[in-house]
């Protein structure tokens, strides 16, 4: 099953079990979704439940907030993270805060989902990552689907949960193949140990997990060490238990992310490691992130601006040798 099909299946199943689930966004109905995530659903559930909205992101999320207040379970699709910026007032000032400001009187069972990240030459206004901003806002659950099976389970959970969830996808993952096990009872807040290892913990999420996995054989060969790879899955809250267990075993942490390095999400993970795991660490943490430039259009420059399997290998090997790993 493809990643986009797994997302489609999650929405389909949620809609079939609960008629309060509605989907809204640009092109989600008749067109079937820009990334074909909602393909076929309008035929099944009708235009009342697959709502084609104008290009008005603030309203897409704002309307979803009002729908959720009134007892529906809206799933709002924003075409890309960059456009979600237009809806940040509704995401941050309303979606994240109404429950707290109303002392629990208002419940917002809603999901806002969008893809982000560097795809192929879409330039800076279609390539950014904003998890660092969203995770800095208390009141939002932020999930990042890098894995097909996780995408299915986590999205279904998000739709049927009573809390507001921002569900982040990645532009380049929609056609990724994977197995989905619907019978599994998967905890969406638990980090996924993609590969076990004993010497270095490499933490990542979304598409970078795949790039890390591509780099790992070479890293292990060059350093003569074994790597444990962890896909965070839930960015807020973070499954620090899994990270802690891994760090106690390996004593070294690397975070790989596609976001710009300054103020990045990964800085928070490294900061946790420094504060909480200092005495378990045998080496200074390593952060591998995108360069602090708006993502360029030119393919060579674009690839130079973000981590790739090649640069991930290079940086980790260099760091490993310097730290005597």
């Amino acid at each position, binding site marked *: 099953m493809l990643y986009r099909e797994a997302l489609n299946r999650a929405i389909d199943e949620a809609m079939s079990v*609960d008629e309060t689930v509605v989907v809204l966004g640009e092109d989600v109905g008749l067109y079937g979704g820009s990334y074909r995530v909602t393909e076929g659903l309008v035929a099944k559930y009708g235009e009342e439940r697959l709502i084609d909205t104008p290009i008005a992101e603030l309203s897409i999320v704002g*309307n979803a907030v*009002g*729908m959720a207040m009134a007892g529906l379970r809206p799933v709002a699709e924003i075409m890309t993270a960059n456009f979600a910026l237009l809806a940040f007032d509704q995401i941050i000032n309303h979606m994240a805060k109404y*429950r707290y*400001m*109303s*002392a629990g009187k208002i419940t917002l069972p809603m999901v806002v989902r969008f893809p982000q990240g560097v795809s192929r030459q879409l330039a800076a206004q279609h390539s950014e990552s904003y998890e660092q901003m969203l995770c800095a806002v208390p*009141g939002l659950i932020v999930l990042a689907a890098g894995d097909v099976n996780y995408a299915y389970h986590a999205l279904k959970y998000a739709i049927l949960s009573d809390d507001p969830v921002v569900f982040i996808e990645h532009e380049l993952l929609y056609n990724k193949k994977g197995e989905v096990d619907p019978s599994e009872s998967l905890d969406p807040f638990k980090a996924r140990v993609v590969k076990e290892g004993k010497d270095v913990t490499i933490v990542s999420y979304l598409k970078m997990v795949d790039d890390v996995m591509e780099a790992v054989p070479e890293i292990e060969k060059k350093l003569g060490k074994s790597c444990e790879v962890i896909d965070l899955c839930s960015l807020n809250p973070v499954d620090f238990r899994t990270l802690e267990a891994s760090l106690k075993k390996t004593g070294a942490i690397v975070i790989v992310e596609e976001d710009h390095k300054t103020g990045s999400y990964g800085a928070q993970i490294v900061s946790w490691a420094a504060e909480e795991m200092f005495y378990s660490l045998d080496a200074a943490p390593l952060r591998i992130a995108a360069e602090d430039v708006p993502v360029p259009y030119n393919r060579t420059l674009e690839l130079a601006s973000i981590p790739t399997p090649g640069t991930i290998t290079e940086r980790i090997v260099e760091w490993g040798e310097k730290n005597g790993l």
Partner: protein
Amino acid sequence: MNKLLAEEIYYEMVLGRLFELAAKEHYMAGDIAGFLHLDIGQEGFSVAAMKAFEKGDVFTTYREHVMAIARGMDPKAVMAELFGKATGVSRGRGGSMHLFDPSHFFYGGDAIVGGQIPNAVGCAYARKYQGRDDGVMVIFGDGATNGGAFFESLNIASTQKLPLLFVCENNGYAIGTKITRVAPFEKQAKKAEPYMVTMEVDGMDAIAVYEAVREAQHLIQSGHGPVFLEAMTCRYEGHSMSDPATYRSKEELAICKAKDPIERMEKVLTTTYGMGTEQLEALKARAQQTVDDAVAFADASAEPELKELFEDIFCKGCANV
């Protein structure tokens, strides 16, 4: 309008004004902090709109104490919220600008200018989907009609024929800037004309407001789609307690006060319904007692416990269904 309703609207207007005067006093005394936006002068609109839209969902702004009370929320709990106490409607976490009570279909208390309008659109969509025809009323000031959220909402509500009543409470000032300096005309309903039926009412006349809101609600309940109602009002105080309102002349304020909604209603009660001065005084005394009780309650209430700091961020115990 029957006598009983007229009397009730009058009582709640008086209650609202006395409540606001008490809030002002306790703000000056330091019992209430943060932002405090008083409704004094606009009670006729606030009370009558709530009474008229008795059933249905209401979304409004940060100038909402009087509306919240007219909607049925306990003045004690509203005052306690202003004091930031644990007995407040939002347990001291929302303050003056964030009064919510879904059991009274009252959603705010929203402090982002125009931010509640798209939420109301979504609620109207949900009500239509659920087959409920009470409709939704969203109240905002004239200053909110210049932001993108407003225009997005007009477009969507009208395209979808939603049972939504847009109400612009036009007091002529976007905070401290005269609306005609930031919009090309005085009446903001003009902006809605291409999208929906628009109506105008004298917001200083509670009976007229009541009737206009009733009429508009009947329209939106009939499947006709959204309606835009503009109520021209005057606020006597500044935008908030931190605004001395030096931008308004004494003459302008005097013209405002000559239209006082409470005095106007008093005249109606005495001339049309034959109420005597004693009866009016008794209503005023009852309202004052209610306000005094609210203040005493707020004052005596406990501060929130520190453990509440972390409560209600997420829906603990609400199982994933």
